[in-house]
């Protein structure tokens, strides 16, 4: 490892880094703007100037930009040098010639990298006395506010948006000191990752528009480490509250999972927490006034449970703790997975493949480092958006490895590397029923029906392994695709095979496993990644339960009288007619949930369940990574964690196990003991009695203001803050001020670093793991020496049937997820209901765009307006999934038109 001398002191640094990364990793404060660990260096802002000396004799030295200088052994530099420090101060001075004096009214104030860097350089007197240039701002949609006057032209926004995330509609315009960052014209930013601009922008040009609706300074937020509930990937987030409402979601760096970024569903989908539709108090129906009639609600629950046989229906969007508590309460034999048959078939198959097969599930960071990618039947941008971002990085990274040796430049030299790479991309193959946004990067993108996708996958695995039989009756086109894919995968060292829930086809999952296993058999270190529908789909499947269909049977047969439903809208799990029928037959329905939904309409007892923001719990991501989310604030009214409700019910009922559990730690230990598959979740976060220097870890910054005043309208004295008996965190600003363990970081802050850039101070090295390791525990590891049991039977090819269409689900990042659509901005971006047809099918059924197409499912008629898309498999019809108030038949299925 090279030794560099900084202000005459030797330091060991990592080879291959640039000087800025090296000095930041050593803990020095060196200001910067245009560099970002995920984006590399371009040398635009000139802020990170240091003095470099030729040798010990050289006293004059020259200024260099640290971000553009590779570290070299025996390099001598000075950060403190007066020329360097003076230059850095002047760079701020230049930036300030046009930056407005609006910190006090700027949303970024208090978490502004520009503020931090300004203070760091010591620029505190403005000697520019001319006018400032001004810009017009743009309307950029519901997620981001635009205030161009604040721009310091660091170019990070376009480098993230275009180069990193593949966006097309944000660019840099004009020149000299009138450079403009925006869209060609006003309009909603199209990228699904646009919200990251609020964090990438070092100042207040792009700010979170949803935060603006209920604005709070970063230092006034009560924050906690949390896990995104938007999909199954388990991105790490920080959620912040003030005055009892959730205000903002920001990224929580996890080097293994989401790195520095989030998708817009994850960032903005939080507003359901503040929804007027929240169930805030228990409700007992069919009593006068629908009130609990003086009796404690839990007595009603107990009475209903005594009245007859009780079954419990779990939820893939509820924590492991809550699902466990329900399963214990009703007994394992009466616990049903609250997911559709299809989801259960698929997720249990994925789980089996990952638990029993020889190939590991990739972390998202491993996915970003894959050197060949095959996607089977997934539109990742809409089903697992951050994984799509990882694939984008993988595809880009592969040719980078080649050019760095030919042009002798390190990979962090972003502009030079991009120039040399040009349009070349690593091998990515996509098989999907419909075009996807990643198609533009693919060496091959094939649009065909799920069964055909599976067949090509089987054919690929046949080409890779003699154990898999040949797929008969393949088309020439399918054969050619399989050969091309097999050749590319075979040439790779770490190929990644992705499949998932959205094609609703077991054969596709099996084909993915076959391909990965066949590669493994060849000695190639292949990886698998399966998308799952919800934030705890994997955890629920690991916990186990009966099929939802059997629950319906139980009720229909009159065996079960009382149904306890955990955080689940069954109208999203089955068609409305079946659901209506089911509820008609239930004697009592007890629902624990957040929002008044269709199921809540049918419940006799409603228990207000805390959302992720008001609860502690554990989720297992698609990767098999167990992660803990911690409560941000204490919910108003009677809302509490579902598991706490269930423990209280159990206590009242005298449940032998549950009645002894009270706190998070107790239940986590109980889960581990009962289900060894969850071993290790105990140590996901430190226990409740964990103290640092004798203190808890505060959820509030030391600058938190107004605590003595904010409740003064209620009582003149400051109320005692709530106790957190479940975790090592406190709901106050008092406590340990140092760096907490990586799993319980409530906010990123370091002296002089108020912005999100302070994450540098929490990492082993910039862009590297957090101190003490990235949080989360992988519960599923492959059986490396497992005998590979390939799936032998490829499905029959899909053939369009006259008079019929194959309904296939189409997922939308904005719209398909149940809770996030309660954010007005997300609702605004939701598509209207449709049925998507190939133009030939439209002709076949004599409809055109906008016409209503009628079809029947289980005796019920549906009508949907037609949209045309020729990138869809002929004979298939795409229908959007999960849109609120859109009751649609099960997909996939063949329906008669």
């Amino acid at each position, binding site marked *: 490892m090279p030794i560099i001398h900084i202000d005459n002191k030797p330091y060991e640094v990592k080879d291959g880094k640039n000087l800025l990364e090296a000095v930041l990793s050593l803990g020095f404060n060196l200001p910067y703007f245009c560099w970002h660990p995920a984006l590399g260096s*371009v*040398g*635009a*802002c*000139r*802020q990170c*100037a240091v003095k470099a000396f030729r040798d010990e004799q050289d006293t004059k030295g*020259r*200024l*260099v930009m640290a971000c*553009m200088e590779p570290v070299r052994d025996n390099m001598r530099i000075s950060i403190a040098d007066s020329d360097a420090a003076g*230059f850095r101060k*002047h*760079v701020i001075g*230049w*930036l300030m*010639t*046009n930056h407005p004096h609006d910190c006090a009214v700027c949303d970024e104030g208090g978490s502004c990298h520009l503020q931090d860097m300004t203070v760091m350089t010591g620029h505190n007197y403005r*000697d*520019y006395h*001319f006018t400032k240039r001004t810009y017009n701002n743009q309307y950029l949609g519901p997620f981001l506010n635009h205030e161009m006057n604040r721009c*310091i*032209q660091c*170019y990070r926004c376009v480098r993230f948006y275009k180069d990193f995330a593949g966006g097309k509609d944000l660019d*840099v315009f*004009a*020149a*000299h*000191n*009138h*450079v403009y960052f925006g869209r060609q014209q006003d309009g909603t930013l199209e990228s699904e990752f646009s919200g990251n601009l609020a964090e990438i922008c070092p100042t207040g040009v792009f700010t979170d528009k949803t935060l603006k609706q209920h604005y709070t300074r970063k230092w006034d937020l009560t924050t906690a480490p949390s896990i995104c509930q938007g999909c199954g990937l388990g991105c790490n987030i920080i959620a912040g509250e003030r005055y009892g409402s959730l205000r903002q979601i920001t990224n929580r760096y996890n080097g293994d999972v989401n790195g520095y970024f989030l998708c817009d569903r994850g960032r903005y989908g939080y507003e359901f927490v503040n929804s007027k539709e929240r169930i805030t108090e228990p409700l007992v129906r069919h009593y006068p006034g629908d009130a609990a009639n003086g009796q404690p609600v839990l007595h009603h629950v107990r009475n209903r449970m005594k009245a007859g046989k009780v079954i419990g229906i779990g939820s893939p969007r509820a924590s492991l703790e809550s699902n466990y508590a329900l399963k214990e309460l009703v007994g394992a034999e009466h616990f049903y997975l609250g997911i559709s048959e299809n989801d259960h078939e698929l997720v249990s198959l994925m789980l089996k493949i990952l638990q029993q097969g020889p190939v590991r599930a990739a972390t998202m960071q491993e996915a970003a480092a894959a050197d060949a990618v095959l996607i089977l039947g997934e539109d990742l941008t809409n089903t697992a958006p951050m994984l799509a971002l990882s694939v984008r990085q993988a595809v880009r990274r592969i040719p980078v490895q080649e*050019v760095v040796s*030919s*042009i*002798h*430049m390190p990979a962090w*030299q972003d*502009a*030079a590397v991009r*120039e*040399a*790479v*040009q349009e070349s991309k690593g091998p990515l193959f996509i098989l999907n029923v419909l075009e996807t946004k990643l198609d533009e990067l693919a060496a091959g993108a094939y649009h065909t029906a799920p069964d055909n996708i599976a067949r090509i996958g089987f054919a690929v695995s046949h080409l890779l392994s003699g154990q898999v039989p040949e797929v008969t009756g393949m088309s020439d086109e399918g054969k050619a695709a399989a050969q091309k894919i097999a050749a590319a995968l075979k040439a790779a060292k770490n190929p990644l095979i992705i499949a998932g829930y959205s094609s609703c086809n077991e054969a596709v999952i099996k084909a993915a496993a076959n391909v990965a296993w066949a590669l493994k058999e060849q000695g190639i270190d292949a990886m698998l990644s399966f998308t799952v529908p919800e934030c705890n789909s994997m955890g629920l499947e690991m916990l186990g339960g009966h099929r939802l269909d059997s629950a319906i049977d139980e009720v229909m047969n009159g065996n079960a009288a009382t149904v306890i439903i955990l955080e689940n809208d069954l109208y999203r799990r089955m068609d409305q007619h079946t659901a209506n029928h089911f509820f008609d037959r239930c004697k009592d329905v007890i629902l624990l949930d957040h929002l008044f939904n269709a199921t809540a309409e049918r419940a006799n007892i409603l228990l207000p369940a805390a959302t992720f923001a008001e609860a502690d719990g554990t989720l297992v991501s698609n990767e098999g990574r167990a992660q803990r989310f911690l409560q941000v604030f204490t919910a108003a009214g009677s809302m509490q964690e579902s598991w706490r409700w269930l423990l209280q019910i159990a206590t009242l009922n005298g449940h032998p196990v549950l009645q002894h559990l009270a706190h998070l730690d107790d239940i986590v230990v109980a889960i581990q003991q009962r289900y060894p598959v969850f071993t290790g979740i105990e140590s996901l976060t430190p226990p409740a009695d964990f103290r640092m220097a004798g203190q808890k870890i505060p959820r509030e910054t030391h600058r938190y203001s107004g605590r003595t005043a904010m409740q003064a309208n209620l009582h003149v004295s400051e109320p005692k803050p709530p106790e957190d008996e479940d975790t090592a965190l406190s709901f106050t600003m008092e406590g340990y001020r140092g760096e907490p363990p990586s799993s319980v970081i409530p906010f990123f802050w370091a002296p002089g670093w108020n912005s999100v850039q302070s994450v540098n101070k929490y990492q082993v090295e910039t862009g590297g793991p957090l101190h003490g390791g990235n949080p989360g525990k992988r519960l599923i590891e492959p059986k490396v020496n497992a005998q590979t049991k390939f799936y032998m039977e490829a499905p029959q090819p899909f053939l369009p049937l006259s008079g019929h269409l194959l309904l296939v689900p189409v997922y939308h990042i904005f719209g398909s997820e149940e809770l996030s659509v309660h954010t007005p901005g997300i609702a605004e971006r939701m598509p209207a209901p449709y049925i998507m047809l190939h133009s030939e099918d439209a002709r076949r059924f004599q409809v055109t765009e906008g016409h209503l197409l009628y079809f029947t499912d289980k005796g019920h008629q549906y009508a949907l307006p037609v949209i045309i898309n020729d990138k869809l498999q002929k004979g298939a019809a795409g229908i959007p999934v999960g849109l609120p108030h859109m009751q649609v038949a099960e997909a996939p299925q063949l329906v008669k038109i």
Partner: protein
Amino acid sequence: MKERPLTQYIPDSGTLHLREYEAVGGYAALRKVLREMTPAEVTALVKDANLKGRGGAGFSTGMKWSFVPMDVPGPRYLVANADEMEPGTFKDRWLLEGNPHQLLEGMIISAYAIQATEAFVFLRWAYKYAAHEMRRAIADAYMAGYLGKNILGKDFNLEMQLHTGVGRYMCGEETALLNSLEGKRATPRAKPPFPQVSGLFGRPTIVNNVETLSWMPHIVNNGPEWFKSLSYTGDGGTKIYGVSGKVNKPGAWELPMGVTMRELLEEHAGGMKNGYRFRGALPGGASTDFLTDAHLDVKMDFAGVAAAGSRLGTGTMVVLDDHTCPVGFVHNLEHFFAQESCGFCTPCREGLPWTEKILLSLEKGTGTMADIEQLDMHTRLLGPGNTFCALAPGAMEPLQSALKYFRDDFEQHVKEKKCPYAHHSH
């Protein structure tokens, strides 16, 4: 009459067309190269001649070519930098309009040396006549078999295109030119990697100035010793020098490298106009330091001008006279540079408009002594290495030397709260 290889056949008006060019020996050098020489021999020849780039930086052309990796597969490119936008500079225009085939032949020879398969002429937007003639010359060269497949029956192919810019000074910087040619924003690139390694579309690329490339046929025909003998100094060849300002005969002349400023001004430009006194000159275009009458005997070659504290640059001199306000003169330049900044790096994007505003304020009589200090500060802070490319350091050269040689004028603006030259309208 001394030898003027570059310009001797340029007609007094109009253009030397293909037949006329061939009639005076045009394309003989190309024939010789393709018949007798290996690419490496051509590079060696140019290296021996020690031809230094005529675009302003004065780097050895042969050396530059030798950095092109010849063993990597895939295309290599040659680009003629004809984006002549340095204020006060009009030398390439003479060559482009007068003898386009000389440039083309030079380009084909150069392309052969680096085994490029495609060549581009990146031409200044405003050079409409040159564009017209260049287009015709390229078409004629294709017709005559000097371009295209199997040039002159040999195993050498070269496609050539004319690309007209949209009028950005920045495109004169070779890496910004390459970005612009790729259809990207005309912002410069960091070096390394140099264009020789990763240039146009990330491929090995040579960018040479028009005057530099026009030398190739002559060096091939006459050899390196002849080339060196043309000069008065160690920097070989002739040079196209120009003079503008209040002189009797402003213009451009091809002269032996190393003529003195005095000879240029007095013998060729005819001395100062009646009533005007010489106060100083930018010897090589707008981005070079002023030299004054103390420097009139400086030899106008790369080393000579550098020793005097300026740069030969493009060799086209802009003269400052005693009726023109040096502050206003520099203000005009800084206005240009501030406007032409690409906006990529902070010091240039924000610093240049600041100097421009201060200079304007001085001209209006609202400047202060602190403003002059601020200008001094900028000349130090916008130095080479501190900014991303050479634009801002170049912009500081006339300012820093004006502050050095004409400081009294600056201070007079502050003291008198007006421009002392205001009654002399230019």
